[in-house]
């Protein structure tokens, strides 16, 4: 009898939840974001052929100035959010660097590509949770060598919307699972990263 009333109560609760509006309207169909601006992260490089690995901890507040390995370069990202909440988008970046030392030259060309899909949940007009999954592919061609590192990316940004829903502050927990790595010296290195980063988001 007691079990039956529990089941009834659960059914009533489910019906009550179903009667609520499922979600608030998405704040805009286009999202432009500045991501991985600063935060805390732990990255680890592993060699699948038994070589030594390397661990790195990075703490940044308001800026990123030091180098290091991992995927968290500050970037601009664009997503399209369908009315039902599904989103598609990604980030793209290109970098070119030349160091002209007194007795040597050093050049790097780097590309970052991070396609992704997600689902924008907006439980309240000022709060959104946006679980996403995607890939992060990076390649850098240096003087005399090339390095490619790739990861499966899981992230769940929490967006605090401000200013009539146009602009939001984003706190993003993320995990990058390194599944592929290749460079001219260590052919089986992978890089994974776990962290929380801060960024900004605007919906149009």
């Amino acid at each position, binding site marked *: 009898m007691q079990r039956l009333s529990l089941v009834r109560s659960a059914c009533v609760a489910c019906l009550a939840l179903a009667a609520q509006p499922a979600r608030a309207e998405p704040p805009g169909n286009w999202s432009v974001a500045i991501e991985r601006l600063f935060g805390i992260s732990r990255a680890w490089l592993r060699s699948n052929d038994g070589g030594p690995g390397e*661990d790195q901890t990075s703490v940044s507040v308001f*800026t*990123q100035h*030091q180098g290091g390995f991992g995927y968290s370069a500050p970037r601009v990202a664009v997503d399209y959010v369908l009315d039902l909440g599904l989103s598609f988008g990604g980030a*793209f*970046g290109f970098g070119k660097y030349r160091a002209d030392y007194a007795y040597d030259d050093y050049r790097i060309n780097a590309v970052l590509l991070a396609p992704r899909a997600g689902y924008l949940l907006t439980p309240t007009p000022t709060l959104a949770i946006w679980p996403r999954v995607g890939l992060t592919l990076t390649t850098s061609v240096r003087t005399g060598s090339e390095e490619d590192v790739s990861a499966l990316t899981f992230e769940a940004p929490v967006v605090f919307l401000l200013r009539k829903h146009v602009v939001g502050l984003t706190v993003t927990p993320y995990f990058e699972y390194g599944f592929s790595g290749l460079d001219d010296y260590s052919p089986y290195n992978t890089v994974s990263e776990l962290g929380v980063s801060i960024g900004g988001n605007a919906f149009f």
Partner: protein
Amino acid sequence: MGTASFDDRRWWRVREARWLSVVALGAALAAFSERDSRAAEPETSSPQRCDADGNCQVLPAAPSGFSLGVERLFGQTWVVRSRDGTDGSIEENFDSFNLFAAQTPHEGYSSPRLAADYLFDFGLTLGGALGYHGVRRDGYSADAWVLAPRAGYFWHFSRWVGLWPRAGLTWLIQHDDGDSSAEDELAVSLELPLVILVAQQRLGLLLEPYVDIGLPGGAVDLDERGVQVGVTVFF
């Protein structure tokens, strides 16, 4: 490799800093007088926001109050590092170009940073950027501090476009346990961001030419110039 002596180039940089300061001051004064003369003219086309009942609210003509921005996000930089060597002055050059992501190594003063400013009603702005980044690896640690106070003038010469000449200082303090090196650089920073205002003039896209002129005093002289992109929210 440079040919001029180290002291000559330091003196030239001081002169360059003075000259650019005069130009920036002149531009700010011109902007101030222009704004003053415009203030006397009646506003004829202020943007309005109206609700369904026809109640209209005049939107502010120019941003004022606090702004929070992300600056030097990506773009082009040219960095020159000069130091005295055993065979005379040694000059090293670093060029970097980034599009949509800052992926390449950082040289000089520029790194993506959070900045906050207060904009007074008459256009004067006061603010700056502060940042810290520390990296720890096995047997290695490195820290960097960036502090960049500044003052400027927001010249809102069109409803959607403004110029924001700014002058200030940039301190860059780096410490590296790996090779026990430390670097402490101070520069005069002159910036002239072009601000494109969107989203009800609350969001500004910045296209920012700048120079960071290293001040003499350290073992190394570090100068930088470039054009970077940023974004600012006006509250």
